[in-house]
């Protein structure tokens, strides 16, 4: 029994120090103002300030849009992948870009989207004229979706290949067309994957701050951007923590809504 206890010491220490303590601290910190006085003012400010509430709604709205765009692109991708012979290989090809540093991928879009960048050169070539692409909402969402696609494809792919092929035969056997089979069997059975994908995309999209800065040009303020700003720029840790608590709450809500999806696939 003693030995068993020794096993768990480093891991338990990690849980206490790096899981429980930081979360407790961020909660605790949210009750302090700039002068280290205990106060509820941060929450009061947050709940009464149109700027904060609007920012939160905005952030949720953008995260939702990014999630929808990613889902619309990823579901067919995952579905086609499952139909291929070397599907594990092709899946690897879809996943491979996630191993490339996120910053580098984002940086690439700075070049691609710049005023005289390749995309504009292409648009001009097509006779569509050059446009301001960088620092627009559209470019921010495009880059975010681009980065999230593999995280959505993977859980959906896993849910799809888990569907017993004889269920599809059974459906056909009972008279269903391909479309009916898809709508009534494949789609409902892949929902756990879709939910896991939404979870994997929506929460990070709420907290993005690097892409908002580099591509969105600070036009889009997300919860993540606000936290980063309060902690690292204005040094108002109390308010930053309050927004952090809001973000954690949002995370739990999303997890609750997309809950009961089994712990499969996703990025975990």
């Amino acid at each position, binding site marked *: 029994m003693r030995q068993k206890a020794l096993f768990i010491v480093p891991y338990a220490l990690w849980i206490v120090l790096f899981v429980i303590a930081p979360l407790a601290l961020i909660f605790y910190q949210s009750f302090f103002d700039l002068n280290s006085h205990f106060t509820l003012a941060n929450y009061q400010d947050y709940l009464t300030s149109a700027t904060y509430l609007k920012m939160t709604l905005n952030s949720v709205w953008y995260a939702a849009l990014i999630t929808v765009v990613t889902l619309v692109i990823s579901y067919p991708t995952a579905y086609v992948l499952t139909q291929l012979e070397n599907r594990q290989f092709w899946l690897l090809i879809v996943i491979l870009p996630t191993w490339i540093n996120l910053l580098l991928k984002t940086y690439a879009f700075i070049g691609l989207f710049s005023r005289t960048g390749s995309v504009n050169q292409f648009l001009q070539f097509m006779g569509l004229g050059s446009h301001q692409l960088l620092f627009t909402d559209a470019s921010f969402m495009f880059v975010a979706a681009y980065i999230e696609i593999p995280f959505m494809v993977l859980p959906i792919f896993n849910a799809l290949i888990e569907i017993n092929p004889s269920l599809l035969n059974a459906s056909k*056997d009972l008279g269903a067309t391909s479309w009916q089979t898809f709508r009534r069997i494949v789609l409902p059975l892949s929902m756990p994957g879709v939910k896991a994908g939404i979870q994997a995309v929506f929460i990070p999209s709420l907290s993005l701050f690097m892409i908002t800065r580099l591509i969105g040009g600070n036009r889009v303020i997300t919860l993540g951007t606000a936290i980063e700003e309060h902690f690292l720029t204005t040094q108002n840790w109390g308010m930053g923590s309050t927004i952090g608590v809001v973000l954690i709450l949002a995370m739990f809500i999303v997890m609750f809504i997309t809950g009961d999806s089994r712990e499969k696939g996703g990025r975990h």
Partner: protein
Amino acid sequence: MGKNILEFKHVGKRYDENVVLRDINFGVEAGKFYTLLGPSGSGKTTILRIIAGFDQASSGEVLFDGQRINDVPANQRQVNTVFQDYALFPHMNVAENVAFGLQIKGVKKTVIQQRVKEALHLVRLDGYGERAITAMSGGQRQRVAIARAIVNRPKVLLLDEALSALDHKLRVDMQRELRQLQRQLGITFIFVTHDQEEALAMSDQIMIINDGRIQQTGTPVDIYDEPLNHFVADFIGESNIVPGVMKKDYVVNINGQDFECVDAGMKPNEKVEVVIRPEDLDITTVDKGELKATVDTQLFRGVDYQITAHDQREHEWKINSIHKTTVGAQVGIVFDPEDIHVMRYNESEEDFDARLDSYEEDED
């Protein structure tokens, strides 16, 4: 003789270089219970899949009610399948599973409800409609799968190794129930199995498949008593198969000893194989025996003793006897002329039937 509801004409199936079915021909009469029996990899499931429409024949014709259906997709065939793993939709409850086929066809809701209820009643699952599939036991799932198929009133019901996932006792119960259900509904059942006991117990007709060919077709009794070749004799039941020479009609020579038998129609001195079922052999004293043998092993099996013994020519015999003996004892083995079944090498099913007809007519 009713007319064939389903017919295979020279059907072959290849996957790339791999030949799975070779020149399959058979007809299926309406309202009977057929079993496709064969070892795994014999091609029996492929035949089923071609009937259902999940696989396409590479050559030949599949006729349903006299119409060629090679190109009719699975969802437009009047055939339903009970799958080996049941393939019940996990996101639907029992009633929803059973209703699926009717909903697809656009049957009215009230009618669906009524027919689902009837189907569940037929498989003795009254009141289980709202249960989740995961809350059902293996045997219950089996019944749901059957209900889901028969509710559509198919002309032919295909059952792919449908009982293999059940434990022995449940399997025997289901065999009886399936047979009863088939009689009650009057639907043609085509049952695929590798279990010969199951095939013998349930079928009107058995088709023995091996190596992509139909080896023999017949009633369970025919196939058991008059196997066409070594494979069938060996696959169905236990058997002693020994080489012999057909001296003349009704006399076969085994190990240099002539025996009276009931087979005829072969060339004089033709090399043949002789089948004697273990239960047709019995133990007696050495002087009364047709063969003398030494007992090697004896196992008590409840209904009888399973004995192995070797004769003077070191040939091993399997004997199922109700008489006890002792290991090492010298015994005599006795059997009757009608217990001997002679098989020619490479005889086709048609030739076999013709030969049987010829000398059985002579006798009459």
